[in-house]
């Protein structure tokens, strides 16, 4: 195990971690504002991957232009999901919301099997397989581009949350929903928009990894638990925590891949998950309990 191999796989882990960050930001935003644990997040990632795949294959889009298609499509899907399914049971016990999103994810995944068959589909692009070298380090171009795309969206989202009225309203609703309501914020509309944004994060992160991860209906399971690990690590509802947590888990997974057989590489991040849940349920950077 040479130094450049270790450094290279850590770097690749960091690049994938950036995508994990974006997935987790979507999940944690939804939790922070609505207190809904969205188990269907993996299915939304899967839909983002298929949207981008079909945009490339059928409409001949560039894979990185297709990210915008996924963003728009998943925003609309997410907003409808919230409006018609989550909203009616917003006051039900929290495990019922978890079960509802589980039901939706079962439906979406198996609908995908029904419509598009369970086959693995690989997006063939001219980018895939391109590596460039930094000294001894080899960096894969598609991973770097995925990282950059995720970072751009995360950056925009950060600006929206901190600099705009919409962001202010979202933060207000997440801290004190009743107070926000009394200040004349349209909570119902805000919840729809927030869920749409969360789903769009899932869609973009899915689209960003489509050039190097095969698409199949159950692909969301690869990420949904990782996204939960990241969210819990960063503190439920903490957007900045999710960002840092994603990078940590990305690196932890790549360390696992160096020592453990392929099927077991995520054990490290799962162990982190259990330890954090047990000893620091508010997350690494959390103040209050989620």
């Amino acid at each position, binding site marked *: 195990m040479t130094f450049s191999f270790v450094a290279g796989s850590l770097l690749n882990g960091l690049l994938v971690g950036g995508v994990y960050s974006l997935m987790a930001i979507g999940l944690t935003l939804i939790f922070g504002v609505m207190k809904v644990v969205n188990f269907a997040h993996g299915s939304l990632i899967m839909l983002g991957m298929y949207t981008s795949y079909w945009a490339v294959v059928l409409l001949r889009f560039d894979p990185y232009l297709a990210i915008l298609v996924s963003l728009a499509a998943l925003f609309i899907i997410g907003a409808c999901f919230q409006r018609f399914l989550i909203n009616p049971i917003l006051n039900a016990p929290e495990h019922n919301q978890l079960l*509802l999103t589980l039901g939706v994810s079962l439906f*979406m995944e198996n609908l995908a099997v029904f419509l598009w068959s369970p086959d693995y589909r690989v997006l063939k692009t001219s980018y895939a397989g391109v590596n460039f070298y930094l000294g001894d380090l080899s960096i894969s171009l598609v991973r770097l581009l995925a990282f950059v795309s995720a970072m751009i969206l995360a950056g925009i989202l950060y600006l929206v949350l901190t600099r705009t009225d919409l962001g202010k309203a979202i933060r207000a609703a997440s801290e004190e929903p009743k107070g926000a309501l009394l200040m004349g914020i349209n909570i119902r509309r805000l919840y729809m928009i927030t869920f749409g944004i969360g789903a769009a994060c899932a869609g973009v992160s899915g689209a960003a990894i489509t050039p190097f991860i095969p698409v199949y209906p159950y692909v969301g399971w690869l990420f949904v638990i990782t996204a939960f690990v990241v969210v819990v690590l960063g503190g439920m509802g903490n957007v900045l925590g999710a960002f840092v947590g994603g990078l940590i888990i990305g690196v932890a997974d790549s360390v696992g891949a160096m020592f453990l057989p392929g099927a077991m590489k995520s054990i490290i991040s799962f162990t982190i998950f259990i330890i954090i849940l047990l000893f620091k349920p508010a997350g690494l950077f959390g103040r209050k309990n989620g």
Partner: protein
Amino acid sequence: MAETRGHLKRKLSSSTWIAVACVLAALHALPWLFPSILHIMIMIFLFSLMGQGWNVLGGYAGQFSFGHSVFFGLGAYVSSLLFVRLGLTPWIGLFVSCGAGVLLGLLIGFLSFRYGLKGPFFALIMLAFAEIFHMTATGWSAVGGALGVLIPLKGNAPGLMQFVQKEPFYFMTLWMMVGSLYLVWRLESTRLGLYFLAAREDHDAAEALGVNTFRAQMTAMVISAGMTAVGGTVYAQYLLYIDPDSTFGVVNSVEIMLRPIIGGPGTILGPFLGSVVLTPLSEVTRLAFQSYSGVYLMIYGVILVAVIMFLPDGLIGFARRVVRKFQKGAA
């Protein structure tokens, strides 16, 4: 008040006893009347046994688990490996499996309940444990790896829990399920059963009144894990083949928990009722749409969403409400 006392004394009216006896008699006659549906019936009984296991923890004690496949898979793997590697009969393996499930349940329960983990957090930690076992079983070749374990068929060997015909499995699973029903029925009337409900309804208030909720939840976990592990052993002996996906997979956790949730969580008959609805559905659609083996899960998804939105207390709760309305109308 009188109703509560009747509830606690566990006295059933004689007409109810007659009804129970009739249903049991009918179930015993069934293999001769409809031999073709034996497989579905075995699956109904097996999954309502494991659903009952989930129900003790999720329905009664209020701790929703998203990873009961960990107990199911452990039960299946322990007895199968003991049989294949050491030649130990699954009849003993059944108890070892049950013990292993209980130990694992104690470990997870100790870790989780000591820190007051609940709601989605507990659900996710169970899921994480199930996934860790899933990955270990897939990656570790000593326990069969991704290929799983094939249990050699020894012909008709009752001593090894192997039967050429389905009838023995039918009666075995039937009586295991009846046993689980009886256990939970008795449990409801004990102090412990009431502690479960107290911990579920208001954890802090129960603590303030002197209920040791930690111990109550641990006990619920033990009963739940043991029942589910037993189900796993019987499942492995019935199908004679297990692999990581079909035991520790997320789908199995869903299969187990959906039955009590749809039938009515926290009710004695809920898991059985849910199993009666879901099992034939999955078996029939699996046969009807062979190339799209996931169609039944799509229907599960729709049913789950519909139940959560419109019947949050399951089919039993719905039936109770209808009966109450009817009685009010009559009076």
